[in-house]
């Protein structure tokens, strides 16, 4: 038994040292997110502030075409009230139609509408942004290695390019981007938004809030998942213990040596 365990540990040790040998990723800023861990939940007011940052800053270039305004009022999300959601949606002009005359028309948004995109199509977005398409943000957090930490790091990672670092026109230096180059200008500056709840809009506060919002957007059922998961695993553990005891009882009739 001991010998077997020894072999296991040797292999494990070998693999771990192997993995470290080749690890070369830049350390991201690690944030102690409220949604981390098995009981993690979103900070409701941070989600609401995060939506404000998205709406006032990011939304001018980044679409979120998998989300609907109604999602903003749903359980486990920012949980704006029904009236707030209606008001938010009504701020947007939605193209609808064709009407009975065959014409397209615009009307104020409704909660059931998808988030209105800043550009009519990808090509239009690329043309305005120097050939780089500002990615849709609906599942952005899940589409990047490092997830929320990565998004936060990039937002906080704008710096002066070190001497000798060549930057083309319309390209900025960012500590956490691949190749340290990013085509998005530094999006957040102190006091850029004035938060409805009076929170001071520091750079890191805004970065935290919008990252929290984006995490919810890519994983809207995260809270339900954590809560269900805890119950399921508790149930399984109890059942496992009961089955284990039954097994012991049954097998006690069998003598291994006889």
């Amino acid at each position, binding site marked *: 038994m001991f010998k077997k365990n020894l072999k296991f540990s040797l292999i494990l040790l070998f693999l771990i040292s192997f993995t470290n040998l080749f690890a070369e990723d830049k350390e991201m800023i690690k944030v102690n997110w409220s949604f981390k861990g098995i009981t993690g939940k979103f900070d409701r007011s941070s989600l609401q502030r995060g939506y404000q940052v998205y709406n006032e800053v990011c939304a001018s270039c980044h679409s979120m075409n998998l989300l609907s305004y109604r999602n903003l009022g749903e359980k486990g999300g920012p949980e704006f009230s029904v009236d707030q959601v209606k008001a938010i949606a009504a701020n947007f002009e939605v193209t609808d139609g064709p009407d009975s005359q065959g014409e397209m028309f615009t009307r104020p948004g409704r909660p059931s509408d998808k988030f209105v995109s800043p550009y009519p199509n990808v090509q239009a977005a690329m043309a305005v942004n120097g050939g780089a398409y500002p990615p849709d943000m609906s599942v952005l957090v899940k589409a990047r290695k490092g997830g929320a930490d990565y998004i936060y790091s990039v937002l906080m990672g704008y710096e002066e390019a070190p001497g000798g670092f060549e930057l083309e026109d319309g390209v900025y230096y960012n500590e956490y981007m691949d190749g340290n180059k990013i085509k998005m200008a530094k999006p957040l500056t102190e006091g850029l938004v004035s938060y409805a709840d009076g929170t001071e809009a520091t750079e890191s506060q805004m970065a935290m809030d919008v990252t929290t919002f984006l995490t919810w957007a890519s994983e*809207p059922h995260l809270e339900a998942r954590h809560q269900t*998961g805890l119950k*399921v695993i508790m149930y399984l553990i109890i059942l496992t213990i009961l089955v284990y005891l039954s*097994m012991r009882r049954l*097998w006690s009739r069998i003598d291994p040596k006889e």
Partner: protein
Amino acid sequence: MSDNYVPSSKFGKWFNDRLPLLSLSAHLREYPTPKNLNYWWTFGGILTFCLVAQIITGLVLAMHYVAHVDLAFKSIEHIMRDVNYGWLLRYIHSNGASMFFLAVYIHIFRALFYGSYKSPREVIWIIGMLIYILMMATAFMGYVLPWGQMSFWAATVITNLFTAIPLVGESITTWLWGGYSVDNPTLTRFFSLHYFFPFLILGLVILHIWALHVPGNNNPIGIEIKKPSKDTVPFHPYITVKDLFALLVFLIIFCGFVFFSPNILGHPDNYIPANPMVTPTHIVPEWYLLPFYAILRSVPDKLGGVILLFASLFILVALPWLDRSKVKSAIFRPIYKWIFWMLVLDVLVLGYMGAMPAEGTYLLIARVGTAYYFLHFLVILPVLGSIEKTEPLPLSISDPVLKG
């Protein structure tokens, strides 16, 4: 077999004479099983559970999924966001694939350690290998369905392998794609086959179990025992309760992934919708295919890589005839015991190299690993059969030590 089983009720007897389902059920209950099976033997039951879970979750997912290049990604997100418990179904299904492979690898390595592929169980082993190969095909096609970046590029890389076949390679690839590149026809046929293959697997699983019930289970000591005897226990309730216990422990780990880190085994790039104009920096398959991916890339020649890839699988089918040793269990094979762990290590290293870019030191290690893989099956095992001095075997499970 329980040919002498007589149902107690009159109707039962009438029915059983026409279709002996009750006899079959009696056989499954009484099936004499070696009493010394350890927990490595519980993975057969776990695998059956995995297959059924994949089929059931997949069935519901297919009701909401749309196999179209413009809609597939959105329909998956629709499942994740708007379908009741859609997130749960999809995460069970995607992590279920990984759990299925985790279990199948343990199951296969258990067979390797205890020599379960040897006479009289060669057919069980071969059917098992067919299941494994079908599982890989099914999982690969399933991975393509969300039509994310990795889906698209994995499909492109793998289907492009067929172009390496001399003369007809290009035509075969065009035929597989249903066009001149990976596109909508490719996606729809992958969906169709992804739905169909699991039922082929199910059929093979039934044959696998049938073939198992002819000679009965191997056991950790690896000697053939008399059945039924004091060395065996009836399958029900002794093995059913043990399998259930192991399944529950397995499920706790499974649920840990599903509920608390459902995306850790996947690649983030697959949450970026497929874009034929943008190639990801590193195209990597899912973890369970990595060792074979490393073998494929370790050959500088495309055709050579493909041949080696298929050879690495078919060599496993031939294993019962490559291993010349009459002794089954590694417990009584002092050299094979170490060789076995070397193979485990080799496959793990290959898997790691498969995830790394194929260049420099990684490529070198991958090549050594590939060479060792073939060396193990083609040289070491056949030679070991004749030179290894095995330890004396016990006469039965009840006397683990040879007397006298």
